[in-house]
């Protein structure tokens, strides 16, 4: 719309004195709106980041657990970042059962060795959060229903996990998640990093 004629009328010219299609006012409009836009986005940032986990929540990101009292075949339920953690001392039979499964039969193929630390295949440490919709599966406590695969059974929608806490049947898409952890001593585990 900004023709040579109109540029001539308003006396607006390009830098080299030749009338151009872009008026000085157009430039000012674009510059002002862009500046305000960037400013608005910058002002939104604190409103958005305030919702991310705060420092006190992140401060809980490591938990030390004493595992010396857990006998083979037993497990404990503890908490890390407010989520349940299952720590289980597998029996040789449970380890053998987990290793007997062919990976191609699994929905989320992982071997027991992938899910434990080298030389510590009996220590299975996972989140106690069903990967379907976040319920806490049964099977860690004494006498709880471990499901047909001897691991965990989620009562909400019937997901069944094996002795390596891998999904075997039911709606859950993934194995129970293995958090980051390390052995700080033979009897102590630090969960989180």
């Amino acid at each position, binding site marked *: 719309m900004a023709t040579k004629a109109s540029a001539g009328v308003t006396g607006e010219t390009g830098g080299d004195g030749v009338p151009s299609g872009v008026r000085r006012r157009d430039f000012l409009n674009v510059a002002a709106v862009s500046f305000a836009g960037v400013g608005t986005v910058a002002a939104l940032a604190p409103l958005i980041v305030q*919702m991310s986990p705060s420092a006190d929540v992140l401060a809980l990101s490591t938990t030390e657990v004493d595992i010396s009292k857990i006998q083979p075949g037993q497990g404990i339920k503890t*908490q890390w970042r407010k989520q349940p953690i299952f720590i289980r001392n597998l029996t040789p039979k449970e380890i053998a059962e987990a290793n007997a499964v062919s990976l191609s039969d699994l929905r989320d193929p992982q071997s027991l060795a992938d899910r434990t630390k080298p030389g510590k295949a009996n220590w299975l440490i996972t989140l*106690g959060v069903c990967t379907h919709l976040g319920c806490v599966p049964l099977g860690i406590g004494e006498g709880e229903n471990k499901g047909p695969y001897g691991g965990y059974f989620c009562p*909400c929608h019937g997901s069944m996990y094996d002795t390596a806490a891998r999904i075997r049947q039911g709606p859950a898409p993934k194995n129970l998640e293995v958090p980051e952890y390390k052995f700080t001593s033979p009897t102590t585990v630090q969960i989180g990093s």
Partner: protein
Amino acid sequence: MSFSWAKPYEPKHPAMKWLDQRLPIPRLVYGATGPGYPVPRNLNYFWNFGVLAGVFLTIQIVTGIVLAMHYVSTADGAFNSVNQLIMRDVNAGWLLRYAHMNGASFFFIVVYIHIFRGLYYGSYKPPRELVWMLGLVIYLLMMANAFMGYVLPWGQMSYWGAQVITGFFSAFPLVGEPIRVWLLGGYAPDQAALTRFFSLHYLLPFVIAAVVILHIWALHIPGSGNPTGVDVKDEKDTLPFHPYFTAKDGWFSASFLLIYALVTFYAPNYLGHPDNYIPANPLATPAHIVPEWYFWPFYAILRSFTLDFILPAKLWGVLAMFSSILLLFFLPWLDKSPVRSGTYRPLFKRFFWLMVIDVLILGYVGGAPISAFRTALGQFAAAYYFLHFLVILPLVSKFETTLPLPNSISESVLGERGTMATAG
């Protein structure tokens, strides 16, 4: 905005004249809900549910504001502030709490009847598409707000409801889990989540009220639809809103509130879950977790995907659940039949009732514990739901032979007398 025969506002008292020239609020009320707003004379009782929804929004805002004066939004204090302080110690606290709790359920009952009224009588059709879409926005806001309100007592169902519903987001690949953590402000529901849900639960009702104003504004451009679906032609077809419909709405609201009072006083926990009287325990999930009844059909759609097909089953479930509502936004273009009212659409009417039964089945499946039979039933019903809106409705509107429409609203009401009355 209104029909040409609408009575204009004429202030009599000098004070009202003075006000009218400066801030014409009485004029607005007179033209919107007073004698200055002509309404089709043949509205049946299903048309009372819009006003009734407004009544329940008001009840929820009023009881909610006073409950917030006593509620403590901390993970340690929330459960006791509801179940000890408000239910036992605060004067009339039990009444306010039960009124608010059941008010939510009744708000949904009313809104569901209102929505199905719209579906049957074609209220989503031109020129009222925006009225329909704004209504859906209100419905979505209501769902979000009901969910957050249910979390506030911090009982077992509150906690695990929050866990499961925010878990929907984790179904999306890559971005899902960070979004979930961002929404919760932590890795599991806790203090941060509770406080922000409280803050938003207080905010959203006012957002809803604002969208309600837009909904009514958009409605008042063409005016209300009516059971025949025939446009208003002249003054004989209408009656002024006041006193005719204020009286009818008042009478009907009072009757309906009687049922609400019956439940609130005599069966206040009938629509809730006993598990929510157990304090939230992040380490143990209730054996049978279900949402409140008004979410059951959607919960059934969510759960009906059990097989991975290109995408994980869980993601299919979440997508299907969201689409089941979003597709309603496209209804004005899915059903193109020029006849609005289901009364004159014999084929549509049959499929409409099948769809109602289908939604009831979904509701039953969503609320009941999982079994092989119910999963299969839910899958069938979920498939039919989409089939109805995406295939059956467009085909029916294309091939159906509709019944002859009455010439006018007054003729449909008064028969020959209506036409005679014109002469007189």
